[in-house]
C-alpha cells in the first residue's frame, strides 16, 4: 500500500489530504486541518455579546452566517430563560437578506476561483479568461461579488465583519431610498448571472424541471454540465446520499433530513460532535472535529437544501446521478438564482416603519441560560451553542458545515467527503471531488 500526501490548494485556509492507495485506487483518505485557532476558548469568560463580534472572525467568507448563528443562540438563551424575544418581520428579512447576499458572493467566488479553473483544465481549454486579477471573466465575477456585497452593506455596514445584529433585531434603520439602492445593486448582479452563468433569465431558470433543459441555455452552467458528462465524471464522488439542513429561513423553517429522496424531520438535539481522529484524542491527526446526527454522517450544503425542499431540477439530476459531484456542483450554482430572486422579494417586503430592534428589558448580567442557534451558511448548516452564567460565557461551541462534510470517520465508517473520495483513481479526481464540497479549512479549525 502506498500513501501520498496532497495539499489541497486554492481553498480558504489550509488542508492536506492523505491518500492511501490499494491497486491504484484510493482505499482510504485522511483529511487534515492543521492550524488551530481556538476561538471557542477565547470566548470563555467574556460578556456574551462579545460573541457577536468575535465569532464572525472564524471566517472571512461566511462571517455573516456566524453573527446570525450567534445571535440566534443568544436569543434562544433568553427564550430558554422565559424571556420573550420579539423580532419584527423587518429585522428578520434584513437578517435573511444579508445571509443570502453572503451565500451569493460565496457561490460566485467558488465557481470562478475553484470550479471553473478545474473544468477548463479537464477540458483542455485555455484558462486565461479566469486568471485572477487579469482574466476578463474573472474581473466580471469579482465585480458581481463586490456589487452584491454593496447591496448587503447598506444594511450591515460592511462586509466582511458587519456587526448589524443585536438581541431583538438589527441595528440598522434603513430609509426607503436605501432599499431602492440595494435593489439596484441586486439587479446588476442578476444581470451578470443571467448573462454569464445561466445564459437565460433567472425566472426561466428556476422553472426548470429537468437537466436536459440546461442544454438549451448558454452559460457557464451549461458548460460545466457538459464537460462533466462528456468526461464521464458525472457519477464521481458519491457519498451516503443522506442530507441534512436545519433551515431557519423562509425556504425551510424547521430542521429536516433527507435519506435518498425521503424527507423527514430532524431534531437539533441529536446532533453530536465526534472527536475521533482529532488532536483532542490520542493518535489524532487533525484539528477538525466531525459532526454527526444520531451517530451517522450526513451531507450538508446547497445539495442538501435543494434535496430537502424538493427542487425539481436537482431532484432530476439526483435521479440520474445520485449525490455525485455533478449534482453537488449544479445544486450550488442553481442556488445562486434562487437566492437572488428570494432576496429581491425580501427587499420588496421590508416595511421601514416597523421597529428594527426590540431590546429585551433585562440587564445583560442577569442572563443565566443556555442557547442553541443555527442558520444556513453557504456551505451548509452552521450551529452555535452557548452557555451563559450571569451574562458571562461559560462555554461556546461552534459546529460548522465543513465539519459535517469533511470530518474524519474510520475505515469502516468514513465521513461524507472521505466516502466520496474512496475508490477514486487519481489525485486530480480527489481534488475535484473535494472542491465540489466547497472546502473551508478555517471554518473547521476555529
Amino acid at each position, binding site marked *: 500500500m502506498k500513501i501520498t*500526501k496532497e*495539499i489541497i*490548494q*486554492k*481553498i*480558504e485556509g*489550509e488542508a*492536506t489530504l492523505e491518500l492511501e492507495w490499494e491497486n491504484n485506487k484510493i482505499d482510504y483518505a485522511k483529511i487534515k486541518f492543521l*492550524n488551530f*485557532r*481556538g*476561538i471557542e*476558548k*477565547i470566548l470563555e469568560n*467574556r*460578556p456574551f*455579546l*462579545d460573541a*457577536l*463580534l*468575535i465569532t464572525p*472572525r472564524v471566517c*472571512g467568507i461566511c462571517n455573516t452566517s456566524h453573527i446570525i448563528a450567534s445571535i440566534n443562540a443568544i436569543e434562544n438563551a433568553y427564550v430558554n430563560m422565559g424571556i420573550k424575544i420579539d423580532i419584527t418581520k423587518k429585522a428578520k428579512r434584513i437578517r435573511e437578506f444579508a445571509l443570502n447576499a453572503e451565500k451569493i458572493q460565496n457561490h460566485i467566488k467558488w465557481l470562478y*476561483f475553484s470550479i471553473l*479553473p478545474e473544468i477548463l483544465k479537464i477540458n483542455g481549454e485555455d*484558462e486565461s479568461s*479566469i*486568471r*485572477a*486579477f*487579469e482574466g476578463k471573466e*474573472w*474581473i466580471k465575477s469579482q465585480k458581481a461579488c*463586490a456589487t452584491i*456585497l*454593496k447591496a448587503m*452593506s*447598506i*444594511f*450591515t*455596514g*460592511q*462586509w*466582511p*465583519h*458587519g*456587526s*448589524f445584529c*443585536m438581541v*431583538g*433585531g*438589527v*441595528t*440598522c*434603520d434603513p*430609509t426607503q431610498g436605501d432599499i431602492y*439602492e440595494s435593489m439596484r445593486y441586486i439587479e446588476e448582479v442578476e444581470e451578470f448571472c443571467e448573462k454569464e452563468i445561466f445564459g437565460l433569465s433567472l425566472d426561466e431558470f428556476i422553472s426548470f424541471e429537468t437537466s436536459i433543459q440546461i442544454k438549451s441555455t448558454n452559460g457557464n452552467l451549461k458548460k460545466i454540465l457538459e464537460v462533466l458528462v462528456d468526461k464521464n465524471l458525472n457519477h464521481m464522488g458519491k457519498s451516503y446520499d443522506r442530507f441534512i439542513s436545519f433551515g431557519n429561513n423562509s425556504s425551510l423553517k424547521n430542521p429536516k433530513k433527507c435519506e435518498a429522496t425521503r424527507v423527514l424531520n430532524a431534531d437539533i438535539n441529536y446532533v453530536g460532535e465526534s472527536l475521533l481522529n482529532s488532536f483532542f484524542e490520542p493518535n489524532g491527526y487533525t484539528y477538525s472535529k466531525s459532526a454527526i446526527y444520531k451517530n451517522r454522517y450526513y451531507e450538508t450544503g446547497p445539495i442538501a437544501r435543494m434535496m430537502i425542499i424538493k427542487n425539481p431540477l436537482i431532484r432530476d439530476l439526483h435521479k440520474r446521478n445520485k449525490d455525485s459531484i455533478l449534482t453537488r456542483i449544479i445544486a450550488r450554482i442553481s442556488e445562486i438564482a434562487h437566492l437572488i430572486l428570494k432576496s429581491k422579494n425580501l427587499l420588496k417586503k421590508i416595511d421601514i416603519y416597523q421597529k*428594527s*430592534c426590540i*431590546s429585551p428589558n433585562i440587564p445583560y448580567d442577569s442572563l443565566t441560560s443556555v442557547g442553541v442557534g443555527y442558520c444556513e451558511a453557504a456551505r451548509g448548516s452552521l450551529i452555535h451553542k452557548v452557555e451563559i452564567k450571569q451574562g458571562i460565557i461559560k462555554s461556546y461551541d461552534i459546529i460548522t458545515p465543513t465539519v459535517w462534510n469533511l470530518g474524519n470517520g474510520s475505515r469502516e465508517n468514513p465521513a461524507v467527503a472521505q466516502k466520496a473520495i474512496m475508490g477514486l483513481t487519481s489525485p486530480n479526481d480527489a481534488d475535484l471531488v473535494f472542491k465540489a464540497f466547497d472546502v473551508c479549512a478555517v471554518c473547521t479549525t476555529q
Partner: protein
Amino acid sequence: MFSKVFKILHHPQINTPYSLEDILKTDAKVDFLVIEGALSRSEKILSRFGYSFKDILDILSKKAKYIICAGSCASFGGIFRLQNEAKIFGALFSGKEKGGFWFNNSKVINISGCPMHPRWFVETLLKLHYGDKLSLDEYRRPKEVYSYLVHHGCLRNEYFEWKVDCKDYGEKEGCLFYEHGCQGPMTHANCNKILWNSVSSKTRVGSACFGCTEFDFPRLALYETKKHMSLPSAPYGISKRAYYSLAGVAKGFKIERLEKRLIDENN
C-alpha cells in the same frame, strides 16, 4: 488599476501562476510580501503546507522589498493572540509592545483593521510602487489612513456634540459612545471618510465602532462603554479637562430637536 500595476505571483486561495514552493525555491526578488494572520515561531502552532511558518517567513522576508501586514492579526496579534499571548503575535508588535515575530524590521508596514479596508491596502501598495511619499505613524501604519478617526464623518456626530445617548439599537438617532461601546472617537481609521464596500460603515448602520484597527483589539466587553465613575474616556488626543468641561456643559442642555425622531413623519 491594481491589476495593471501589480502581478500576484502566489496567493494560497486564488488561481495564481506560481505555487508557494516555486516562490520559496526561486532566487528572484519580489516587491511585496503580504502577511495575513497572527504569527508564531512555534511549528506546532503555525505551519503551512508542511513547512514551519518561521522558515517560510525567514525565506520570504529576505526576498521582499516590503512586508505588508494585512490586518490587525498580522500587525498586533489581534484576536488569535489571545489564545497564547506569549507565543502568538504580530510581525513587529505584540499588542502594544514592540517586539513580535521581529523586533526590528524596517521593511514592515502595518495596515491594521479587522478586516483591513481593501483601499488602505491598494493605496499603500500604489504609493510604494510609484515612489510617492509614505509617512508612517508610531505603529508603522500609513498616516494618510490612520491619522483620521472613525468619528470623522460619523452621521451621529451631532448627538455626540450634545451628549445625546442612543436610546435603543435600530434607530437613526443618538450616539453610541456613552453606553454602547463605540470607540469611534479614539480609533484611527478613515472608515467614515471612504466608507466600506463604498456604501456604508458600522456607525452608519447603528452599530458601534469596536476599535478594530488598534493594538488592543478586541477589548473585553466590546458592547459596553468602559467608564470610571460613570465617566467615559476622553476622545483621542483631547485632555480629560477639556472633554469633561465641554461634555458637562453640553449635557446640561436639553436640545428638543435631538430628542425627537430624525424623520418625524407625524409633524
